[in-house]
């Protein structure tokens, strides 16, 4: 789960990391108010996407009137495909130098990694490797001050700036571990003309699997309405822009199913991993969800291990019965545990099951393109 900049900065500030004075606002009047308190301000759209500066999402206002008019302009606008409903209004900084500083989970190394650079304020992916300082942290021992000094030294920091940097990095690491974060990033970390370092921008991506132990941290809903419903139902669901709805069991097989649909010339409407061992009810919910987006066809691809093929069949029948038919051509591929029972249940409702993935995929692509594709149209008992 990604936090908005202003939320990340609240967490940073709680840990003692200096952030610019400012407030999050939802109206032009509030923006004017903050400007009248702070003087010259930066007005920044709060969206969960990078590159907002280039997209015009960061403006500067010298007067409350200007702040009000800029805020009015930004609120409600779309930036990077996301509607702006919140702005962070902050005192404008007198920038001397910009650094990059982050702590992230390094999957390959299985350890936290600190990434720092003198090239702050830009997308870190665009900074050449030789200008990055990377240091892994052993979870057994944590981060100690000597390592933060080493990193500061590598950035050629000296004196008071080096000490501030060291302190901020120790605190950022505390934010990272203390919040169960996947990424805690300050970009840019600004050295102001008065010699003080401040976190001018902040990102904090939290581990969804650890949110349960952080009731104090804010919650941010991501994705579309349907994606959120799916998430609440415990499904792993991603919307795509095609027209063939897909349900499979297992992330890898689901991805492969999408690839195969594409291979046969079709366009998948979604990724939906029903997981291993899901029961009738969750799978029925998942199918309902897929159908709510009005696809041209539905492919259910099950290799039954823990997942029982008869449960899959019952889920399909349940939805079809409830809706008075699935409404779209449905292609079902069933293999594995209780395969025979599943196939029988489908047959009783005039649905045919495939056993080969290739055939099923070819059939669903044909069905979506207008042909029947060998599958049923999903109206049971017809």
């Amino acid at each position, binding site marked *: 789960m990604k936090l908005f900049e202003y939320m990340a900065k609240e967490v940073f500030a709680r840990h003692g990391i200096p952030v610019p004075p400012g407030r999050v606002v939802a109206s032009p009047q509030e923006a004017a108010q903050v400007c009248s308190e702070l003087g010259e301000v930066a007005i920044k759209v709060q969206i969960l996407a990078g590159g907002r500066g280039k997209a015009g999402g960061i403006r500067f206002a010298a007067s409350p009137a200007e702040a009000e008019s800029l805020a009015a302009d930004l609120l409600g606008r779309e930036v990077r495909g996301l509607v702006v409903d919140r702005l962070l209004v902050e005192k404008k900084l007198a920038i001397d130098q910009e650094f990059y500083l982050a702590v992230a989970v390094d999957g390959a190394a299985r350890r936290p990694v600190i990434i720092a650079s003198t090239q702050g304020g830009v997308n870190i992916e665009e900074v050449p490797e030789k200008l990055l300082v990377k240091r892994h942290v052993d979870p057994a021992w944590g981060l100690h001050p000597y390592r933060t000094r080493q990193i500061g030294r590598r950035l050629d920091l000296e004196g008071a700036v080096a000490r501030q940097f060291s302190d901020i990095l120790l605190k950022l690491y505390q934010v990272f571990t203390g919040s169960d974060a996947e990424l805690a990033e300050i970009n840019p970390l600004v050295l102001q003309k008065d010699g003080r370092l401040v976190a001018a921008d902040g990102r904090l991506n939290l581990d969804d699997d650890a949110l349960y132990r952080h009731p104090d941290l804010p919650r941010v809903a991501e994705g579309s309405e349907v994606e959120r419903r799916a998430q609440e139902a415990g499904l792993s669901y991603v919307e795509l822009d095609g027209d063939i709805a897909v349900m499979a069991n*297992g*992330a890898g*097989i689901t991805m492969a199913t999408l690839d195969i649909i594409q291979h046969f010339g079709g366009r998948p409407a979604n990724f939906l991993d029903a997981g291993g061992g899901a029961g009738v009810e969750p799978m029925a919910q998942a199918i309902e969800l897929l159908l709510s987006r009005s696809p041209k066809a539905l492919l259910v691809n099950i290799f039954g291990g823990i997942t029982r093929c008869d449960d899959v069949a019952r889920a399909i029948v349940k939805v079809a019965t409830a809706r008075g038919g699935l409404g779209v051509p449905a292609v079902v591929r069933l293999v594995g545990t209780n395969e025979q029972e599943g196939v029988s249940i489908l047959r009783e409702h005039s649905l045919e099951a495939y056993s080969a993935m*290739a055939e099923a995929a070819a059939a669903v692509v044909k069905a979506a393109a207008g042909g029947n594709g060998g599958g049923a149209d999903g109206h049971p008992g017809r």
Partner: protein
Amino acid sequence: MAILVDERTRVVVQGATGNQGRFHLAQMLAYGTRVVAGVSPGKGGEEVEGVPVYDTVEQAVLHHAVNASVIFVPAAFAKDAVFEAVHAGLGVVVVITEHIPVHDAMSMLAFARHHNAVVVGPNTFGVISPGKAKLGIMPARAYSPGPVGIVARSGTLSYEIAAALTAAGLGQSTVVGLGGDRVVGLNFVEVLKRFEEDPGTRVVVLVGEIGGTAEEEAAEFTKGMAKPVVAYIAGRSAPPGKRMGHAGAIIERGRGTFDGKVKALESAGVRVAALPWEVPGLVASLLQAGPAPEPEARPPASED
């Protein structure tokens, strides 16, 4: 021969009295795996399928010569379970549990490395050496003994490929699930290394997916391997920025793309199947072309 687990593996199931634990303990036993103990705090003295349950792994080790564990405990307690297994000296710890916080995973994997224990997973289907031992939740009938090693990130996709190989008469030495999380104990390279050294493996199938750089690192490693490798990579059609179920399966900031992985593998001489059902054909052709298997090491004959 096999890697990681075989007929000498003596297994404790942690979380043996939960629904999942019970069910898979029975399945593993039925497969012939030597499940000698279960552990569930507070349930010591009970039995599951005739297997004695203890409160602690320490006790299980005291009473049985346990050397591996399969963990089914809930995510919030999984880190503690891994620490317990590693502390007790078990060499292979298979973590089925999913949704373990990534900081817990980093911590428990660091502990395991400091103590030279191998952790498979978390969020893995496990490890099976067909005909010898099954430590995990995979459907037994997809597998048969043979010379093909499989290493995969994903469960069902690898079942699919194993079943296709089995159907084609191409049995497996060992099938290893790395796990679908961003941070897992074993990576492709470490498993490839073991397959390369295993006399029972003649061809290796690598089942990868988009995201991360594990496949690229594997590609680099295969350049030094004597044994041929076949790969299948899922996620060709995945758009950037969308996480496809697995924590790792996402193309972020241009890294971990399908094309990049396939290119890396192919330029290292790996045969990459465009579709899953092409794998058995590629494996069969390589088995025919490959070197004869080394004879298995035998214990010296008894003198009496």
